[in-house]
């Protein structure tokens, strides 16, 4: 009886800790705009892995970054190139409908928010983001 209580309490604490950790590592965003279509469409809900911030981004990854022109805004783009060790060139998949590094130059890796890993809404768009 008493052992059962300890085990359930421990499990609850563990579950809570895991949940808190997951909430810190994975943040949800809604996408606005079509510059990343079809990888990301206007209105997609996505999960972003913020741990990617601490590792160098990989070429071709879809990432979120702070807009260098207005750091309170978060933008979604693809890593197209590296510019030195601490900067990345971010481009939209739809160049004609995208404002990106062509306008504001390379972005500091410190301004990356995370990597977009999963689309979870709408249901027909559910899947990994590549």
């Amino acid at each position, binding site marked *: 009886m008493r052992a059962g209580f300890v085990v359930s309490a421990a499990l609850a604490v563990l579950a809570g800790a895991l949940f808190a950790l997951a909430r810190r590592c994975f*943040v*949800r*965003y*809604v*996408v*606005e*705009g*079509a*510059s*990343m*279509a079809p990888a*990301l469409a*206007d209105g997609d*809900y*996505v999960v*972003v892995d913020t741990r990617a911030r601490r590792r160098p981004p990989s070429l071709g990854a879809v990432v*979120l970054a702070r*807009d260098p022109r207005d750091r309170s*805004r*978060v*933008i*979604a*783009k693809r890593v197209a190139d590296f510019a030195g060790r601490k900067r990345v060139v971010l481009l*939209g998949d*739809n160049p*004609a*409908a*995208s*404002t990106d590094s062509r*306008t504001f130059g390379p972005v500091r890796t410190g301004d990356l928010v995370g990597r*977009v890993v999963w689309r*979870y*809404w*709408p249901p027909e768009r559910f899947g990994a983001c590549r």
Partner: protein
Amino acid sequence: MSLLARILRPANTAYAHCDGPCGVYDPASARIAAEAVLSMAKKLGDLHGNDLATENTRSRFIAIKEEQAQLAKDELLILWTDYFKPPHLEANPDLHTTFWNAAKLCSQNKVEVNVEAAQALVDTIGGIHDIFWASKNRSDVPFYTAG
């Protein structure tokens, strides 16, 4: 939006926009071009004689009037088609008519040398100035003319 979509909606937004290179709009650029048209129309009316020097000046005034009227039209079309969005139309139901008339006035100022039409263009842009800044909830931007 369905209930589920509302529940699942994240609080954060990531922008994947083409927001233009700068997102900076101001009816002032159209106003300056329209004022140049007005100035040229007045100067053309005051220009008399047909010696070579006067003909040269007249040609230059006409060219500037033509060019600035087109510039005013281009600037107005940018405001009309890029800045203004459907919600603005709800607040200003005659927005389309206003811009259509303004664009027509630009054309009229190219075709004619007409001080009244040029003044009407400046005045129309003054009205657009009011709509524009009201849409941004700004009451601190007065309309003025440089000329």
